């Protein structure tokens, strides 16, 4: 499926922030914004929901810790108990350091994998670039022409008023 989009190219951080905010308030459909670095506040300007990654981190971290406590208990006190210096079979306080490390390991690895999954990034994936300068120094605001009421000339004018250096109309394949 293809869609028609209008792309505004901006040169500065201030301009893209302002234009994105204005486009959202005007009710235009923002497909995405492309930026060479993480612009502070752009997520609010685009009206994005908060990322769910912290939940992955919390839940998998807790799962890792719980698994490790169980594993340490099972190996040390149940499967093959070995008397080490007369210490109790179930030496919970001594299990704390490794439990902590395993929690961090589970939380970290699973959050990274979840990030790659959610963002659909993988080694060797072909990058679909709007403009060769995106990863260098320019910003792009992509608006979808979602209905017949979308007046290209008017929106182009609107983008230019908000500091767009260049405006392009393109046909784009819908990736997701």
């Amino acid at each position: 499926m293809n869609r028609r989009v209008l792309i505004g190219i901006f040169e500065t951080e201030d301009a893209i922030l302002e234009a994105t905010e204005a486009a959202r308030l005007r009710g235009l459909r923002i497909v995405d914004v492309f930026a060479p670095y993480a612009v502070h506040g752009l997520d609010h300007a685009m009206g994005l929901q908060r990322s769910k990654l912290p939940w992955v981190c919390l839940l998998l971290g807790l799962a890792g810790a719980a698994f490790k406590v169980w594993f340490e208990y099972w190996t040390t006190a149940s499967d093959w108990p070995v008397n080490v210096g007369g210490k109790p079979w179930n030496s919970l306080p001594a299990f704390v350091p490794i439990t902590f490390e395993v929690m961090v390991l589970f939380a970290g690895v699973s959050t990274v994998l979840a990030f790659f999954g959610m963002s659909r990034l993988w080694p060797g994936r072909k990058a679909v670039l709007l403009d060769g300068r995106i990863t260098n120094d320019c910003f792009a605001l992509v608006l979808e022409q979602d209905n017949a009421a979308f007046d290209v000339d008017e929106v182009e004018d609107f983008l230019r008023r908000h500091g767009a250096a260049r405006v392009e109309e393109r046909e784009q394949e819908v990736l997701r």
Partner: protein
Amino acid sequence: MAEVCSPLRPALIAGDKKPAGVTEDICRALLRPPSALWWGGFSVAFSLLLAGVAAVSYQIATGVGTWGLNTTVGWAFDITNFVFWVGIGHAGTLISAILFLFRQKWRTSVNRSAEAMTLFAVMCAGIFPIIHTGRPWLAYWLFPYPNFRGPLWINFRSPLAWDCFAISTYFLISAMFWYIGLIPDLATIRDRLQPGLRQRVFAILSFGWNGSYRVWQHYEVLYLLLAGLATPLVISVHTIVSWDFATAVIPGWHATIFPPYFVAGAIFSGIAMVLTLMIVARKAMGLEDYITHRHVDAMCKLLLLTSGIVALAYATEFFTAFYSGNTYEQFVFLNRARGPFAWAYWTMVGCNVFVPQLLWFRSVRRRLAIVFVLCILINVGMWFERFVIIVTSLHRDFLPSNWAGYQPTIVEVATLLGSFGLFFTCFLVFCRVLPVIAMGEVKAVLRHGKSHGEQA
């Protein structure tokens, strides 16, 4: 959130750069052929690495008997080196994670290379306990895995098992943190290169990054989460390293002060190593606009702070020994300061407590040559700190008939030099193949195109 832009403070990045200028500067340093200086450094580092490989092969083939250890001093050079290298690594995490949480924007110029340094230092550290096991081909026995010996599991109550988990988790998390930070920069380089093998490699490594803000949003959260995980992790790692000693009943080791003392010492030596590398890289790669006097100044102040903590720990140890009324404890500390290893003890105190005091003076902090020398002295001092803790506590134990000396053999010295060879070889290769400055992060702290200014 109100942001403050002070006209009195110099910009973080000098030269009033624009984002394209940053890409240009960093990629230029990366894409031009290596200089004679680089080849010089590389040949020295690589020769040391080869010497280390020879020494390690010889000692693995022959046995740990090639070392100067004896029945009294059973830990010496190798564990000193291990603790030293783990400590070096900690500054990288401090700069990349802890300073990120504290919103210290100056970190953007140094975090990439500091994180790389962490990885290489942890690699160097890992070698020593593995060869110390005597049969390194059985090193996987350190991990619990189902086996045909029972299955017999590892002893989870042992600090050595904790160490194994702590160091491997630390290495993995640091590596991921570093790589996540690299992805946008790899994409920047990919889009600048002409089609060819190099471009294809960068295309694979950059995971199809295209600058979409929907991805940037998750990316920022991921970065924050990893920083939040790495911060307690780094503290836990050196805490656990200190427990290798503190859980033993040896006077001089059995102290509750060890975890904070070790963590502060680790950050102290690590910052000194970061500064050493940065002062060289700045000059050699022409990065004067990115690593400015302001960065050096900030790191010097961190050195001063951690030196103070380390000095306080030295004093506290003596006081505790005196106040405990325990003769063995008192003997160990007097023996440190006045016994056969007094020279090592006073080298440690001189380099770690007295030398850094010079950093109180602004004129010293602004003279990079002096800072460079101070940093090297601090690292000498920190190496001796670990040596003093380990060897002086062991060499005169409870029974005078057991007392012994310790002298490293040529094999041990070659292994230490080899670890420096590995570290610098890795670092020099890193400087040539990957961007040493986090372009994406530096662009975000430039003053260009921002009305809300820069926050320090």
